[in-house]
């Protein structure tokens, strides 16, 4: 705590592309802002659910989905600012211990969408340590691509709730915008899982 620890050296687009490589039936929830663009840049998919608002909610959407779909792996891809707004969710998730849920926090230590102001993570708050303290079974701070590859192999294991902070560069790659029609994305996602619209 207290030291400046703003982001890291990894390329967020390369990180997300690597995590989603060979994804099969992985279900993906994205936090608003850059993580949504990163997941879209890796390729739109029926099993993607992109948030454009409700900052702080990505991890909880992941928890509800993981609880309803225990036979699927669920990956939440979000940023440090989005996770910080819903940090209490880490306590709630830890009490539920969803074995099939992984949260990947793309931590650039900044609020990238609003002008790159330094975030709490950039000032030394370690979200992986928060998750560990809450009781997550597996937590890591990842600073190299070998760590990202290791995380990817763990997504399918469904052997305990996981959170990794992945230290990425504080930069905004060109935006790749996912669909903004939330009803469409929701119905597409549900249809891919065999659930009819009302």
């Amino acid at each position, binding site marked *: 705590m207290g030291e400046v620890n703003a982001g890291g050296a990894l390329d967020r687009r390369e990180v997300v592309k690597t995590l989603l490589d060979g994804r099969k039936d992985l279900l993906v929830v994205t936090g608003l802002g850059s993580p949504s663009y990163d997941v879209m840049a890796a390729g739109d998919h029926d099993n993607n659910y992109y948030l454009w608002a*409700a*900052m702080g909610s990505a*991890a909880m*959407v992941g928890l*509800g989905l993981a*609880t309803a779909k225990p036979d699927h792996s669920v990956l939440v891809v979000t940023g440090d600012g989005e996770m910080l707004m819903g940090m209490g969710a880490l306590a*709630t998730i830890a009490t539920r211990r969803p074995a099939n849920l992984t949260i990947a926090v793309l931590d650039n230590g900044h609020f990238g969408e609003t002008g790159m102001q330094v975030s709490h993570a950039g000032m030394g708050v370690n979200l992986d340590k928060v998750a560990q303290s809450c009781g997550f079974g597996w937590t890591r701070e990842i600073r190299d691509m070998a760590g990202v590859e290791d995380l990817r192999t763990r997504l399918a294991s469904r052997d305990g709730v996981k959170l990794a902070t992945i230290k990425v560069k504080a930069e905004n790659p060109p935006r790749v915008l996912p669909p903004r029609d939330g*009803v469409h994305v929701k119905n597409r996602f549900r249809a891919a899982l065999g659930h009819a619209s009302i």
Partner: protein
Amino acid sequence: MSDAGEGPSEQAGWRRDVFDILKAADVKHIVYVPDAGHSTAIRLATEDNTINSVVLTTEEEGIGYLAGAWLGGERGALLMQSSGVGNCINTLALQTCTRFPLLMVVTMRGDWAEFNGWQNPMGQATERALNLMGVLTWRADEPQDVAPLLRGAASMAFNGDSACALLLGQRLIGEKQWVK
């Protein structure tokens, strides 16, 4: 199921009705920030192994959770006190923009015979705040109204992909005893 700790009013009546209606509506997830008025429903949910009962650190977590559960094909409900409605306002956009059944049961404070005036600002704004965000609302102040109003709210939430809230008035719940 044990009756230990249950008063006569818990074995029947509106407190029990809340749980029974949610169960009959095929709710698989009851997510909540505790309130005394919800204690029977919370206890019954916790004892029911077909229902995921999830305690939240703040009420808006429940909106994200229920959006996710619905993506996975399952129904839920959010139980909270009126003060928690204030915490939910921005997150209600998730329901408006994606349309999913969001059923909420809200126990009122700052509504009638309130001892703690700090509850009044949010309590007095609760229903209008929900309406401003597009939530359909009903109020129950009599025990016999709880079951039909909650059944109706559940029906409109799950058949209409709507956000629906039943407010349980402070006259229904009873005055909180501050000095015993």
